[in-house]
């Protein structure tokens, strides 16, 4: 934990920054209160034997108030035999516990938790409660906005359980992991705002890492992406995730992501 805050202090003092609607990670900021977000994530991941795994993850997001937001997500995939299957779903909640705002900058800290169910077979050493493992994840996120630049980092504990019914988590494998992420994003266009209809273009680079607690095996991925924000309300994200190194068994670490998102403001009273 101390290391995390030290790393953060260094990043902040480096004074780089971007927008903070990241593609592969969540920021510490929440959605507006009483709004509803609809998101659909499509992942096209390449298995090492050449097979293309398609994952579809539809998601509903609700900003309860300025501090709390929740997500519900479904996991659909063709990774197993027999075409597209609904494999599971998850519940995610985020609590923003610190927010320091200033003119075109902020620093925020949030804690989050995810609980997921999945009935697919367990096929890799990597633990991923988004679409692969039944289990939970608990973490903290820190995000710094500095005008057009945003930096975000997170640290989490992820625990895999049995994928019921039928797939027990292998007792010989590590069933828990530490995850860490670091994201940088920058608003590229427009240079200057005149109205809400201007399409925004953001460029991002994210680093996503995991270390298995029981055996010390780890990986680190790099994930560049481009994001278009249309009418200040809809988001189109195109990203690519590439493994930089891995000492653990992973089925399909590399691939493209296409994410579509739309926010409905003031849906709830």
């Amino acid at each position: 934990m101390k290391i995390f805050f030290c790393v953060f202090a260094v990043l902040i003092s480096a004074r780089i920054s971007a927008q903070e609607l990241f593609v592969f990670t969540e920021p510490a900021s929440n959605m507006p209160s009483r709004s509803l977000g609809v998101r659909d994530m499509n992942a096209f991941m390449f298995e090492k034997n050449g097979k293309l795994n398609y994952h579809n993850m539809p998601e509903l997001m609700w900003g309860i108030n300025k501090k709390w937001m929740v997500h519900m997500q479904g996991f659909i995939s063709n990774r197993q035999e027999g075409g597209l299957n609904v494999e599971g779903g998850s519940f995610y909640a985020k609590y923003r516990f610190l927010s320091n705002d200033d003119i075109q900058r902020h620093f925020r800290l949030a804690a989050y938790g995810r609980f997921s169910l999945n009935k697919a077979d367990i096929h890799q050493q990597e633990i991923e409660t988004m679409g692969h493992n039944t289990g939970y994840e608990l973490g903290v996120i820190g995000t710094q906005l500095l005008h057009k630049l945003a930096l975000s980092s997170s640290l989490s504990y992820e625990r895999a359980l049995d994928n019921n019914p039928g797939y027990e988590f292998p007792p010989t494998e590590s069933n828990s992991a530490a995850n860490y992420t670091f994201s940088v994003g920058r608003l590229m266009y427009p240079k200057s705002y005149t109205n809400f209809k201007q399409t925004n273009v953001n460029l991002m680079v994210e680093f996503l890492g995991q270390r298995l607690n029981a055996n010390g095996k780890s990986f680190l991925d790099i994930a560049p992406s481009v994001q278009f924000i249309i009418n200040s309300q809809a988001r189109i994200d195109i990203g690519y995730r590439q493994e930089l190194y891995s000492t653990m068994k992973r089925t399909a670490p590399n691939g493209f992501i296409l994410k579509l998102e739309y926010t409905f403001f003031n849906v709830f009273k």
Partner: protein
Amino acid sequence: MNKILIFPVLLLLTFAANAQITKAELTATGLTCSMCSKATYKQLTSIPEVEKVETELNKTAFILYFKKGSAINVGVLKKKVEDAGFSVGELLVVFNFENQQVVNNNSFIQDNIKYTFIDATPAILTGEVKVQILDKGFITDKEYKKQQKLVKQFPGYASVNNNLYHIKTL
């Protein structure tokens, strides 16, 4: 004994005025992107007393025009900006005054909300006058810390109350 003395003094200093708020200029902090501005805009336009909101996106600023005769509590504006996920960095409010006497510590009540002049130049005001709300949550945290010297002079400034605001003429 002290309380008994203070009460009539407060009565003398407080006038029920006819000083309608017609307009507000709000700068939000903690955001850059137009999606964040839109979230703030949508929150502000959901206030029933607001007739229209103009935006200045580069400055993350919003100009609010209120419906005629409506009672405005600026605390509602602050809450709406915070609901969008951000903060108020500056709030300027336009009052329509009628012979309003401005003296430090002088107060008036409008729509059950008490406004106290602090850090003010003595004057008598008539017509549309722009004032700044100086209370916590209506200026940046940095600015609020700087204003702490005012607490010695105006002890009431330290309190945070939804029906009691401290204003400065500009």
